[in-house]
């Protein structure tokens, strides 16, 4: 059983990272140039020289949603994979064939998504 020591280092490192990142934002907010009377148009939403119109909370392409769903599927697969790959040396041949079957079923799911056109971006 390993000592908690490495995790103390990890926590310390994470805290220092946090401090550095927030510190940079803070220093930037403190040192920035302050315009005396800035023109109000400066605070408009940027739309490439056009007058801004409408809201940005518009409908977005459904492809992004499908990708998120597929990602969930395959990420859960990865979560299942990792304990298996770690213990493979101790488990032997049977575990190998079991995982081949598991990956085969997943590839079948991937093939289904492909045939349904979920992976096609031009629709």
């Amino acid at each position, binding site marked *: 059983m390993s000592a908690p020591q490495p995790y103390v280092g990890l926590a310390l490192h*994470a805290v220092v990272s946090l401090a550095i990142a927030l510190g940079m934002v803070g220093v930037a907010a403190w040192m920035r140039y302050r315009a005396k009377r800035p023109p109000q148009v400066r605070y408009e939403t940027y739309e490439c020289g056009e007058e801004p119109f409408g809201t940005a909370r518009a409908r977005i392409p459904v492809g992004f949603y499908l990708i998120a769903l597929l990602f969930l599927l395959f990420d859960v697969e990865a979560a299942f994979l990792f304990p298996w790959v770690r213990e493979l040396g101790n488990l032997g041949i049977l575990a190998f064939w079991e995982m081949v079957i598991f990956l085969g079923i997943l590839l079948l799911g991937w093939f289904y998504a492909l045939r349904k056109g979920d992976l096609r971006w031009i629709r």
Partner: protein
Amino acid sequence: MILQTGVRIGVVFGVLITIVAYMTLAERKVSAWMQDRYGPNRVGPRGLLQPFADVLKLLLKEDITPRHVDRWLYTLAPAMIVIFALTAFSVIPFHPSFVIADIPVAVLFLLAAASMDTYGLILAGWASHSKYPLLGGLRSAAQVISYELPVALSFASVVVLTGSFSLLDIQDFQHRYVWLLIPNILGFVIHLVAAFAETNRAPFDLPEAESELVGGYHTEYASMRWALFFLGEYLNMAVAASVITVLYLGGWYGPFQPGFWWFFLKVAAILFLYLWVRFTFPRFRYDQLMNLCWKVLIPLGLVNLIWVTALRLWLF
């Protein structure tokens, strides 16, 4: 013990910030040489002080917060990218006697830290409350989570061969047998390509494709908060290069004098590859990018996993 760790963290951050600062200069210089120009050569001898001038300039610029943004998330998003990029370095073994946190699940930790970066990008796009940043943020989120899967499969193939999640054990394995580049060449190539996409670098820099999205997720940002996005991007490149070095190229081991030198040499070589590719290849189209991931890299990754498993069971 705490003190020693603290000193190490200080050294790592000092070296990192210097490397990142000079990466920006190297990028401009290398691109200049590839295009038959001089590049920046006015600040200091041969332009060597250029990064400091850039940082000062960015700090002193007017920092505009547009009226329609979600203030909290808008300020937090660039910091988040930097935080998670910096945190990933805690588990990288630069040398057997110089690793900040040798945790037994380092591989999983790296995967987690890499995926947390998505939050910074998508929050920046969402909080800007503007059309271009939102599209850029969505694109980058879809791109980064998609390419996380090939990376996860490559990590898995490395763990299959070495049987450990600890990066020090993986180094030992490569020292005793062979660099994992040799038996796991397919995993290495998949990881390298996916690393380019995960760090939003050319030829996969779709989230900030300036010809169609203005600036992508950082369109509404100015001054130092804008620069933090790029700090995060360069830090992520350094993380990706270090991870590839540790997992496939044998880390600090080398033919003559094993040590820090080899580690930094290999990392520098991969970082140079980033620049080389950027100024050699044109940008992909978004559907090509997604096809490459879902129709090529993920099936290849699964096949590679089965291949290395067979190798492990029947060879070692």
